[in-house]
């Protein structure tokens, strides 16, 4: 299968492409070509330059050096060459309906009946990629859950839109999808490539990469460090190539003892002192809402006590976490200001000390913590949000899918940090779309339709048990 693909002219060819942001070499001389029928898995640590590579390919950024060409179509622009992108951060127009969003990327839809055509086309695309999706073409996007939006965006990426999609770039498309939906996407990618399309698939979930990629590229610090057919990699080999020495997936320790119950919610969610409680189930079934309610209920919009009772780690960075005008330093310390203030004034020496400490502890990739937070890659921004929460002494930490876009190596570090903090008596409530993370927990609540459908603990926490609890009532 490989030789057939290689024979055709590549859809896109990069030669020595580089992109510099000031001193940062986000992309440092990459040569790469993608042929029809290929599914390219792209992996690398946070800030390796994956998103930058994608933006150079699709024309969003022009390279500082080197060239980007589209030999197969001979077109001058990515759009003309049939290159489509699904971006790491959601990029639909929330005020428009699903069908209207298709119209944005499908300029050829014209005439009086364009609405009907758009509806039909998007419905078809959704049916094809995500059978049984349950998304109406006339629904305004802002009424959809984050997973549904991601699905719409992927469907628009694959939709015919007048011309044919030759290369679809998916930048961490599964980060907010649950396992079942992600599975649907993976099988669609396989079908698409088999039919002669090409895909660049970026993910930090190595399992997914192995499941779909025909070729895997590993990036590190703006360079390609490995580029081989998928079959030549093992999981460990991949992790080594990325430059992380991942500790063995830590086995859950034998049942620990916990303190008194410190959290109870109307849904029946409980957590004890020192416990790591997971929230699982299909995406969009009320886990995030339950956590937000819990957090907003426990804290006040009117008072900020010196010792906060609870802190929050956001997963949807842009919406819930990052303060975009500020430096890394100020973003990291914003939650602990009352504690480090004297007579209402911030103690700036203490602040710098704490920020430097956490930069080291959590490995934020930056030279200077006074750089703007937006100069960090997605995953590194996420680490800042972790630092913000862990730096406070709040006894309860609420985490809303906090590992979105965090690379494998960092994840392991963070898991360890969480366990250490839990051992010191902190309680964690952790919603995740990834079963692997849920398995790190002491106790797991599975959500379905906004209610708890199962409570698992200890050895019961297995992928099968969780999946069956997620679907149980659906089948009934």
């Amino acid at each position: 299968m490989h030789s057939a693909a290689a024979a055709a002219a590549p859809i896109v060819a990069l030669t020595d492409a580089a992109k510099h942001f000031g001193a940062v070499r986000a992309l440092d001389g990459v040569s790469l070509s993608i042929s029809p029928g290929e599914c390219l898995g792209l992996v690398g640590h946070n800030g390796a330059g994956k998103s930058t590579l994608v933006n150079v390919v699709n024309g969003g950024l022009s390279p500082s050096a080197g060239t980007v060409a589209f030999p197969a179509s001979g077109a001058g622009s990515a759009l003309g060459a049939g290159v489509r992108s699904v971006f790491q951060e959601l990029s639909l127009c929330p005020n428009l309906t699903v069908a209207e969003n298709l119209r944005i990327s499908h300029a050829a839809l014209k005439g009086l009946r364009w609405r009907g055509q758009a509806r039909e086309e998007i419905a078809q695309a959704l049916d094809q990629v995500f059978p049984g999706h349950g998304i109406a073409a006339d629904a305004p996007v802002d009424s959809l859950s984050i997973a549904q939006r991601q699905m719409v965006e992927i469907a628009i990426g694959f939709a015919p839109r007048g011309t044919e999609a030759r290369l679809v770039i998916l930048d961490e498309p599964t980060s907010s999808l649950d396992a079942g939906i992600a599975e649907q996407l993976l099988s669609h990618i396989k079908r698409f490539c088999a039919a002669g399309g090409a895909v660049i698939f970026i993910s930090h979930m190595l399992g997914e990469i192995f499941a779909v990629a025909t070729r895997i590229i590993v990036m590190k610090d703006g360079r390609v460090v490995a580029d081989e057919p998928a079959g030549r990699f093992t999981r460990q080999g991949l992790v080594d190539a990325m430059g992380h020495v991942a500790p063995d997936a830590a086995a859950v320790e034998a049942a620990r003892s916990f303190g008194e119950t410190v959290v109870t919610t109307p849904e029946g969610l409980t957590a004890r002192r020192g416990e790591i409680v997971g929230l699982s189930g299909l995406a969009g079934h009320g886990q995030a809402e339950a956590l937000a309610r819990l957090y907003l209920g426990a804290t006040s919009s009117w008072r900020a006590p010196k010792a906060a009772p609870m802190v929050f780690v956001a997963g949807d960075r842009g919406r819930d976490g990052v303060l975009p005008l500020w430096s890394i330093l100020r973003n990291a310390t914003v939650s602990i200001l009352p504690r480090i203030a004297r007579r209402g004034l911030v103690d700036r020496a203490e602040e710098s000390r704490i920020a430097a400490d956490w930069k080291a502890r959590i490995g934020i990739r930056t030279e200077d913590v006074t750089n703007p937070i937006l100069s960090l890659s997605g995953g590194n921004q996420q680490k800042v949000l972790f630092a913000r929460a862990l730096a406070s002494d709040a006894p309860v930490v609420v985490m809303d899918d906090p590992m979105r876009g965090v690379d494998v190596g960092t994840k392991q570090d963070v898991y360890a940090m969480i366990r250490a903090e839990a051992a010191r008596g902190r309680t964690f409530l952790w919603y995740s779309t990834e079963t692997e993370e849920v398995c790190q927990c002491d106790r797991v609540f599975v959500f379905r339709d906004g209610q708890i459908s199962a409570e698992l603990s200890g050895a019961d926490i297995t992928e099968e048990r969780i999946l069956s609890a997620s679907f149980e009532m659906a089948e009934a």
Partner: protein
Amino acid sequence: MTLFARYRILLPVLSLAILLAATFYMQPRAMSYFGVNLLFNLAVPIALATIAQMCIIMVNDIDLSLGAFVSLVACVVATFLNDTPLLGLVILLALVLAYAALGAVIHALDLPAIVVTLGMSFVWGGLALFILPSPGGSSPDWLRTLMTVKPPFVPMAVVASVLIAGITHLLFIRSGLGTVLRGVGGNARSVARAGWPVIRLKALAYGCAGLFGVLAGMALVGLTTSADANIALRYTLLSIAGVILGGGEFTGGKVSPVGAVIGALTLTLAASFLSFLRLSPDWQIGAQGAILILVLTARLLFTRRDAQA
């Protein structure tokens, strides 16, 4: 309740209906062809100005110069368009293009629209003073005839409002290009990524605002028969209030042309309703504020907002 969330237009319609019923109850004389026309004819230029403001709010900007612009247009219409129609037309066209250029500049240099339009309000005002240092001019006859025409059964004001609402609905909600324009307000980046020249879209939105501003100025002169440099200054705030009353939002490209027209009618009617109440002069001004608050509070009663921060 979800009914109101789903059909945002219901609420503006309902507030207008209630206010209208109250007005008719207070002043039965208003319930006639003649009465309805008197109640609403001055709402026609306001409705057009509100649509103009909506075009700007649609792309996430706000226009603080609209009132001054409509005043300038009124001065041009009452002088040049009346005396030398061709020159007048050229000037009006130039004004529309100036608005479009403004949109392009704001986008290209990434300027805050609120400041640029604040500055432009001085410029428009100064130009208007040049044209009409003191009130005067007169409406072209055809315009006066058009604005005072008496169609059978339904008064001009109602016909005009329905036409404005219908046409702008087609233009901004139903049409493909209108959808893309709203997309610019929703997420300009994704529109740009889809290959649209956002700068031209912004220019188009501003150009539309300029066009409707010009129409507002013309309608106004047709009704008042003459102009002065300060004639429409209050349209700036009135148009913003109209867009919001009509269910629009300041950011995110959420606007409704039909709602905007209804908002303009509601604002006009609210003032009439108050004058039928015959309050003491001390409180007449305050009552206008109170009724604005009241009508908007209805939004709270019906549309439940996310409890989240």
